[in-house]
Structures are given as structure tokens and as C-alpha cells.
């Protein structure tokens, strides 16, 4: 064979390629490799829990020592779930799962019917029974069949073997669970390929068009309910309800009124719209020497938006709406409802924050150099999330299949009983005493089945030796550890 390889230069390369393929498949079929991937996936996932995701780099430098912050940014821990390494690990797990399924799960879980050395199996026992062979066989078959075991018989090496299987179909549980994972992955891939999502905010009395669908949503009003409740720690202002009353114009041009609540999204042409946030848009008036500054403010602005201060390079950011100003402290009170409202404004010189102020609505604030800022009336706005996800049915099916697979593989214990009936020791032809050799295997090892095996053996002994009949045999433990 070596000579043949030498004569064919491509053969060596082919052999090396085959060996590499075999090694790679063996690696991916190794349970410890899969568990190592799980460990890396778990650690990366946990890092994402501990490290704030998607923040500005300055946030990490404020939160951690510089070296740690640099490490967080360089290793992409700030956006870990979308990092190539993270997605790659999930990809490797899926490959490992597929290879394990075909190389390990299927062959190991669906073993062929074969003869075994009963006394070498860790779970083994021998029951001695009297009678003719056919009666003993019939008793054994009846015993297992009546307990839900399926019986198959094979003649192997001139000996008749009885194979009793319980929950044989459940041997596919792991396979089912793995298929569930693959279906979920397929469903999420369909979303990545064909789905979309986005956020939009609508100020009461205005409307917006969703770019991907052309649907038009007009917000008639946003309503909220916040209830003050006495607790042991004081009054808590508990949000009870957030509701957007909207008029929707769908793809067919039909317009209708509806409401969107938290936990109650609406469906427009297959795209779902969710109540996500709300806020207070405020009309700001910016003046210089008593005259409006042209082009500085157009309409109400929302939290996070900025107003340029003429051409000074300075800007004002509307950071937060304060429902109730605490008159004693001059700061924000705990009640978020707009009883005595104000706004928190940040003042910037270029990128540099130079001050923050809480300004009551309707009051002017002197910015210096003749500039004055006056927050006026507020209007509620609603923040909506929309999402089109054609992969949902598959993800749902995949989740169901996964859970079904887990339940099958964890709770049902497929077991196989090997039964061989031989003449008992010292019997002459025709024998009247028989040694029923029993050995059991399960997909989860022997310990888990030990008690049940013991009970089965005892029950079989009782069945072959009914109490009303003279005692014909006994449970004879056989076999030493090998």
C-alpha cells in the first residue's frame, strides 16, 4: 500500500486530507470540546451581563481603571453579543452539535441487537425457573410485555436472545433537542435576512410614516396613569398604564383608530408595533436681547435633543423632564406627574459640559451675553418600537421541539434488557431447571437504573415462582466485577 501511495503523489495528499477531516470531525464530536465551547460561550455571555453594553467609551473609562477600560474596548466587550468571536462561538457550537448528532448521538443511542456476556455487565442477575423451556420463555416475555417493554427475539451464535426495550423511541430525545436548536437558529437567520425593526417617536397631534412599510401612524394622544402608593419606605409613584391612542393608515390606504399598550402590540400588515417609551416634548423659546434667535428652535423638542446657541459654538441640551420640583430643596421631587414641572438642561461649550440647571417651565433663565432661555408648555410624546419578523413561527416551533427533546432525554430513561435462557447448572437432558440470565443497559449508565433493575429482578423471580406454587428457584446473584 505504501508503494501505491508513493506511485500516486495525490494519494498522500488525499490521505492527509482524509486524516485531517477525520481528526476535525472527531474533535467536533468530542463532548469535552462541546462543553469547552459552552464554557467559553457562558463566560462571554456573563461578561456581557457585567459590562454595560453599547455605551460611549467615556463610560468605561469612568467606570473602570484605564487598563481595564482599554481592554474592554479593544476586546469589544462593550458590544460583545454582536462581536465576531461571540457569533463564531455560537457557530462552532452548532457545528459541534451537528457532528455530535451524527457521529455520537445516533450511533450510541440506537445500538444494534447483539449478544453480550451477561456476567460482565454491571447490572446482571440470574433467576432460576423450573418448567419446560417454552413456558419459561413465555413467562419472561409476558413479564416484560405487561410492564410496557417491547420484545424482540434474535438467534445469535445458535442461542436465542430476547431483547426487551423500554422507551426505545425516547433514545431520539437528544436528537430532537439538537434539531430544536437548529430550527431556532434557522428562524433567527430568517429574521436577519428578511426582517427589520426600528423605533419611532410621535408627539401628540402629529404623525409619522414607517419607512419600511409606508404605514402612517397619527398619535391622537398619549395617556399614562401613575398612582401614589404608601409603602413601608414611603410613597412610591407606581406606573400603572401607558396608552397611545392612534389613527393608523395601513398599506391598503384604510384608516382606523386603535390603541397601543404595553404587552398589547398592534399588527399592521404583518408588522407589530409596541408601546416602548414616552416622554415630554417641550417648547423652548431662545431669545437674544429680547428677540427670538432665528433658526435655533423649531417646534417642541424631546429629551436628549439640543438647541444651538446662535453662532457661539455653545449649545443647550434638554436632558430630562421633571414632573414636580421640590420647592424645599429646589431639586427634582419624587412625583413624576407634571404638577410643578421643569426641565433639566445641560450647557455645552463645544463638547465640554459647562453647567446644568433645573429650570421651571414658564420661567426665563439667563444664559449670559443677552441670551435667555424659556421652557414653555409641554406635549406628551410616545415612543414606539416596530418589528417585522418572518422567523417567529420557526423560532416558536424550534423552542417547542427543543423543550420536548430535553423532556424526552432527561425524564424518559430508555433501557434495554438482555435475556438469555440456559439450562441451570447440573441439569441433564432434558433439562427442567433454567437459568434466566438478565443484564441491563441504559443511555445514562448503570447507577441510575440500579434500584429499578433490582425491583424487576425480584418481580420476575416472584412471577416465575408464584407464592401458591412450591418454590422453584431463587435469585442467584452472579458475576464478579471485571
Amino acid at each position, binding site marked *: 500500500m505504501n508503494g501505491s501511495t508513493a506511485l500516486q503523489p495525490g494519494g498522500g495528499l488525499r490521505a492527509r486530507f482524509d486524516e485531517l477531516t477525520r481528526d476535525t470531525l472527531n474533535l467536533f464530536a468530542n463532548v469535552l470540546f462541546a462543553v469547552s465551547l459552552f464554557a467559553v460561550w457562558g463566560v462571554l455571555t456573563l461578561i456581557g451581563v457585567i459590562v454595560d453594553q453599547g455605551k460611549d467609551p467615556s463610560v468605561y473609562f469612568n467606570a473602570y481603571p484605564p487598563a481595564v477600560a482599554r481592554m474592554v474596548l479593544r476586546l469589544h466587550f462593550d458590544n460583545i453579543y454582536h462581536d465576531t468571536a461571540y457569533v463564531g462561538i455560537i457557530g462552532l457550537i452548532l457545528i459541534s452539535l451537528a457532528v455530535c448528532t451524527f457521529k455520537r448521538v445516533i450511533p450510541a443511542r440506537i445500538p444494534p441487537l447483539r449478544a453480550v456476556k451477561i456476567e460482565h455487565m454491571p447490572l446482571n442477575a440470574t433467576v432460576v425457573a423450573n418448567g419446560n423451556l417454552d413456558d419459561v420463555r413465555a413467562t419472561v416475555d409476558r413479564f416484560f410485555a405487561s410492564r410496557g417493554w417491547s420484545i424482540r427475539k434474535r438467534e445469535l451464535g445458535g442461542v436465542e436472545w430476547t431483547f426487551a426495550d423500554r422507551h426505545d423511541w425516547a433514545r431520539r430525545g437528544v436528537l430532537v433537542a439538537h434539531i430544536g436548536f437548529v430550527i431556532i437558529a434557522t428562524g433567527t437567520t430568517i429574521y436577519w435576512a428578511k426582517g427589520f425593526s426600528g423605533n419611532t417617536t410621535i408627539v401628540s397631534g402629529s404623525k409619522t410614516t414607517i419607512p419600511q412599510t409606508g404605514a402612517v401612524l397619527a398619535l391622537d394622544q398619549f395617556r399614562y396613569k401613575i398612582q401614589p402608593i404608601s409603602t413601608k419606605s414611603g410613597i412610591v409613584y407606581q*406606573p400603572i398604564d401607558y396608552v397611545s391612542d392612534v389613527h393608523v393608515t395601513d398599506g391598503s390606504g384604510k384608516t382606523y383608530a386603535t390603541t397601543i399598550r404595553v404587552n398589547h402590540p398592534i399588527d399592521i400588515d404583518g408588522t407589530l408595533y409596541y408601546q416602548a417609551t414616552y416622554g415630554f416634548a417641550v417648547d423652548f423659546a431662545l431669545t437674544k436681547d429680547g428677540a427670538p434667535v432665528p433658526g435655533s428652535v423649531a417646534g417642541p423638542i424631546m429629551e436628549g435633543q439640543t438647541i444651538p446657541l446662535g453662532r457661539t459654538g455653545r449649545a443647550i441640551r434638554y436632558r430630562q423632564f421633571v414632573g414636580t420640583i421640590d420647592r424645599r430643596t429646589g431639586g427634582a421631587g419624587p412625583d413624576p406627574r407634571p404638577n410643578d414641572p421643569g426641565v433639566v438642561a445641560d450647557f455645552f461649550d463645544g463638547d465640554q459640559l459647562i453647567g446644568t440647571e433645573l429650570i421651571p417651565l414658564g420661567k426665563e433663565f439667563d444664559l449670559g451675553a443677552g441670551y435667555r432661555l424659556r421652557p414653555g408648555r409641554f406635549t406628551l410624546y410616545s415612543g414606539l418600537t416596530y418589528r417585522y419578523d418572518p422567523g417567529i413561527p420557526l423560532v416558536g416551533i424550534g423552542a417547542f421541539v427543543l423543550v420536548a427533546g430535553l423532556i424526552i432525554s432527561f425524564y424518559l430513561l430508555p433501557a434495554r434488557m438482555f435475556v438469555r435462557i440456559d439450562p441451570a447448572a447440573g441439569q441433564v437432558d432434558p433439562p427442567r431447571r433454567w437459568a434466566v440470565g438478565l443484564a441491563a443497559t441504559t443511555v445514562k449508565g448503570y447507577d441510575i437504573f440500579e434500584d429499578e433493575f433490582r425491583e424487576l429482578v425480584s418481580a420476575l423471580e416472584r412471577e416465575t415462582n408464584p407464592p401458591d406454587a412450591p418454590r422453584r428457584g431463587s435469585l442467584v446473584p452472579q458475576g464478579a466485577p471485571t
Partner: protein
Amino acid sequence: MTTDQILILIALSAYIMATLALLTYFLSREPFARMVGIPFAFLGCITQFVELLLRWQTTHIWPLTNLYGSLSLFSAMSVAFFIGFALRYDLWFLGGFVTALAGGFLGYALSWNEGYLPPVPALQSYWIKIHVPLVVSSYAAFMVAAVASVVYLIKYYFEQSLEGGAPMAGLSAAGAAAGAGNLGLRMQAEATGDLASLRESPATAAAAARGNALAQWLATLPSLAKLDVVTYRVTAAGVVLLAVGIVTGAMWAKEAWGAYWQWDPKETAALASWILYLGYMHLHSRRAWQGVRTSWVSVVGFLSIMFCYLGVNIWISGLHSYKM
């Protein structure tokens, strides 16, 4: 005192009594201690469920919308899980640890009891009646599994110390069982009354025969193989419950927030814990890892569950920050 407070007091007292009695049983194997401990464990568990139901009935507010309610259910479910498995596998010797932890968690839950608050809009969904009990029950199962693992490790390391630190014949439970002989030998030993031969470690059996008190006490505990199987079975229950909990949580998230996965700290930590337990289930399929190694994984898994449950709720803000 309100009925609510009286019931909590009864549950706490019952857990204290159950802990004392069942720990005594664990150490002495005195049947009387077990007979005293079991009714108290039942009483504490039932009282807690009655308290939660009463709270719901009185206020018409689902009691699991805050940390007090969920911790209270966690405590009750852990005892319920334990009772279920103890009845099936005769595990009462573990009871003292479980009721001690349940009582501790119930006591801690009281520090979060702010009274009756209506749920915030995100929690006003029928999913809360499905998702939260499932997830909290999975945590409870993992707690019972961790307790069984700790007892496994106690027995394993004590047996090692009796053998002068030398590794046991089998590192794994399966190996240990094989070292003790197969079922045939076990049955023979039981038939002849030679119970010493049932123990995994010959050195422990020898030490017990010499009158070593530690060895004699170890011999009263179930075999390492049985402890390993119990841990596996309880963990399997927890893994499935957590899987269904994560799936129902994702379905709820889809309904409430528009995406079934938001990488919120809570759901991500739950995923990390689930991955860890999947690792446990896979490792348990390898004979060399069964026993002491998987027991350690179970203990680490429970720490991860505690981080997911309490650490994320209390220290890390996110979409699941429902303390009150």
C-alpha cells in the same frame, strides 16, 4: 398582627424547627428527629403557599411581581421540590440544609416586603403567571441539586481523608459503584447482612469496622453513586424548567418589547446559567466526569443562578429590575 404576618411567622418557625430536627437526623440518624422534622418541613411549605394565595386573594394582585413574592415562592418551591424527591428517593437526610436555606431566603425576602403594590405596565400580562413560577421553580430545583452535591462532596472528601488522601478506586460515582462490586454482589451482601461491603470505599469500611466514628457516620449516608443520581435527576428537572422559563420569557418579551431577546442582563445571566447546566448534563454523560467533578459544576451552577436571581435584580439595572 395581620394574617399575612402570622403565616410568615409560622412558616419561619416551622423551617427553624425542621432545620434543627433534620440536621440532628443528618448527624445522628435518629429516626425520631426525622419524624419531628418532616411535619415541620411540610408545615412551613404549605403555610408559605397559603400566604401567597391569601395575598393574591386579598389584594387581587399577583403576588410574584416583586422580589419579596418571588423569593417567597423560591423558598416554598425549594422545600416542595425537596419533599417530592425525598418521598421518591428517601432523601430526608438532606432536609436540614434545604429548610435552613429556605428559611434564610424567606427571612431575606421579608426585607424586601414593601406591602401591596400594583404591577407596573410591563408586568400586566398573563405571562407573569407562567414565566415567573417556572423560572423560580427551576432556581429551587437547582438549590436542592446543589445541596445534594455538597453532601456528595462532603462524603467524598471525608472518605478521601480516611484513605490518607489517596484517590479513591474510582474518581467517579460509577467507578465507585464498580469498586463496590456489581448489583449481584450488592444483593448478595444484603442477603447475608454484610452491609460493610456495600460501601464504596474499602478503607472507609475498614475504618468503620475499627470503630472510627466518622467512617461509621459516612456509612449511614447513601452511596456516592446514589447521591450523584439524585443530583442528576433534580438538575434535569431544573434544566427543563429553566429552558421552558427562558422560552416563555422570550415569548413574553416579544409581546411586551417587540423582540424575544434583548440581551438584558437578567435574561443573559439566565442563559449563561442554563449553558452551565447544559454543560453539567453533557459532562454527566461521560463516566470519567460523573461524581465529584459534576458535583462541583452543580455547586458553581447554583452560584451562577444566585447571581442571576439576586445579583442582577439588586445590583445591575435592566428591564428586569423589579425589586418592589
